[in-house]
């Protein structure tokens, strides 16, 4: 095999593996955003959900060694994971209560909950650890990585499947991929998916069909919380092994953008999330060149805008083609 080809392939695989890693939190959150959006409830609180989930996960995994000193070591990260999912879902539940029960505007309530998450996590962290910045001083755990045995030496594929350090991808990376497939399938093929889509598209019709619209919306928002929590837990217990104030760093908003960029469809959303992941990896790697960091960080937003414009132009061209064909038919006797 050509050595150059292997080198290029390996470099590409490194970037691909990094992209997967960087895209996973966004992917989780954007799947969540998609579900609630399809149920007719835009979830702006994804950012806060991720933050709360990361916090609860890290703190619980660290403290579980104190609470359950006799438990096997592998259990602690999973306890943290469970706590993170629970806490993030609870925050989404709060959003649902404020919107569905108390009549709060969804977007503003979402912003409010983001602020609440920002304040509460730091407040609690300071209260528990005496540190306002991060939990670096706590012995917290990461969720395990899955490594494909026996392919570490295989060029390109080894890097792709087992990551650039041959440690394998975090289990949550696989969960995210599985969740993507599952959600795409469930939305299309299950009764629940049908009902959820019907609720989001025409709530009145869903109500008239006897669907429990409010309960479906709760389900949409809670599910979106659960998924976004997955992203938060990955940030704190996979990507990193610590909680840092404000560590979601805008990924929740990016995820929301991914939902719209992906045309509110599962596959499109996944592609958009990967694009955002790739953009941030590019930003991390382009910095070696003489490009100002500011310019690099403009890439993801500009790509998003360009994509929105191009998609529209594409649709327009298709429409124009169809219309031209119709016109020809009209003019022919």
């Amino acid at each position: 095999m050509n050595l150059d080809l292997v080198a290029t392939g390996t470099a590409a695989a490194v970037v691909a593996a990094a992209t997967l890693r960087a895209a996973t939190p966004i992917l989780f959150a954007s799947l969540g955003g998609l579900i609630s959006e399809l149920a007719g409830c835009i979830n702006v609180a994804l950012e806060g959900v991720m933050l709360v989930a990361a916090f609860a996960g890290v703190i619980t995994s660290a403290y579980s060694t104190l609470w359950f000193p006799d438990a096997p070591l592998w259990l602690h990260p999973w306890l943290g994971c469970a706590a993170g999912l629970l806490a993030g879902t609870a925050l989404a539940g709060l959003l649902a209560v404020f919107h569905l029960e108390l009549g709060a505007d969804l977007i503003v309530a979402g912003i409010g909950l983001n602020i609440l998450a920002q304040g509460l996590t730091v407040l609690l962290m300071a209260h528990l650890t005496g540190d306002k910045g991060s939990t670096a001083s706590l012995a917290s755990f990461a969720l395990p990585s899955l490594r494909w045995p026996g392919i570490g030496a295989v060029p390109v594929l080894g890097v792709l499947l087992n990551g650039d350090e041959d440690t394998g991808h975090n289990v949550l990376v696989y969960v995210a991929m599985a969740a993507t497939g599952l959600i795409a399938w469930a939305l299309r093929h299950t009764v629940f998916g049908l009902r959820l889509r019907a609720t989001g598209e025409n709530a009145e019709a869903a109500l008239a069909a006897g669907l429990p619209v409010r309960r479906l919306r709760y389900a949409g928002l809670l599910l979106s919380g659960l998924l976004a929590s997955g992203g938060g837990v990955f940030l704190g217990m996979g990507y990193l092994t610590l909680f840092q104030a404000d560590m979601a760093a805008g990924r929740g908003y990016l995820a929301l953008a991914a939902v719209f960029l992906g045309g509110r469809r599962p596959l499109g959303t996944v592609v958009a999330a990967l694009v955002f992941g790739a953009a941030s990896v590019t930003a991390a790697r382009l910095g070696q060149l003489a490009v100002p960091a500011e310019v690099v960080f403009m890439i993801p937003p500009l790509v998003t805008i360009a994509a929105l414009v191009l998609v529209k132009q594409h649709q327009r061209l298709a429409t124009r083609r169809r219309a031209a064909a119709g016109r020809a038919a009209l003019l022919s006797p």
Partner: protein
Amino acid sequence: MRGQPLALVLMVMVMAVLTPAGAGARAADGRPQRVAFFVNGALGDKSFFDSAARGLRQAKADLHLATRTIEGGYDPTRWESGLVDLADSGDFPIIVTGTYTMGPLVQKVAPDYPDVTFILFDGVVDYAHCACHNVYSMRFRQNEGGYLAGVLAAGLMRTGAIPGAAPGLVGLVGAMPIPVINDFAAGYVAGAQDAAPGITVLRQFANSFSDPAMGKEIAKAQYGQGAGVIFQVAGATGQGVIEAAEETGRYVIGVDSDQAALYRVSSPRRAARILTSVMKNVDTAILRALRLWQQGRLPLGRTESLGLKEGAIGLADNPDAALTVPPAVRAAVAAARQRIIDGTLTVPTAFAGGRP
């Protein structure tokens, strides 16, 4: 019924207005003197502000001062009013604040409150253009620490002791290209070049002080290119660099505080990846300044420059990584340190016009 809550609020407001301001504020004899620490940001950065806060806590214990830390938040439009409010309240005879950003604000506020003493760390006021007789400022020569880090990193690479790393490559991850960070970097690059001429220093900024995930990604990219050691000057973002070091089995140099100490108990494996940390001893510098102030010996109206010589800058000793660094490299670092203290070596700085 409807008007009642509003009336209650109004009553509270009226009562508050009638209460005299700053009751019991001015320090009477025998009561601890009150020190305010104004943070133009928030605590928890694991390095700079946290270190300063540590100094204040130490002062509270050692000097029996009553300290209060006020976090001004990240919105710069509120810092001026925050500072003026502290000075104006009359509650605090001395106000501590830091960073170059606060310099011009102190310069603006201090002349209006001649009875209040200001300690400005890691920042300066222009004494030539302001009547700042009540301001003591100190700046740090962090480039000297950066230089030692560079000597250490490049020296270690030259030994070829790090498996998989390219010998001619070291890395640096910064938070943002601000002068203080550039100053660390300028010293680091100079030190690396002096120790191993022709060595390449990879440099990248994360564009954020608080995105460890980004820090980790950048560090992985640099390690992936072959860097064996990365000097992180990135605030909380740097925690990601440290994690990347652990995962890739390479090394990192911390900044501001002894960052190995952070992990020594919780994660010894990680601590072992931190060769050392370039210490910027803001805490001891502040403690010293407050002590001098208490003794009436604080040199007001001037800037003090603090570096290796004064003990304000230094390398932390990390026993966990001690075995990693060969004696020859240690010796080179020690020699460089001595030459800087002696004044035989001048480290380049990122501050325009040399010393501000």
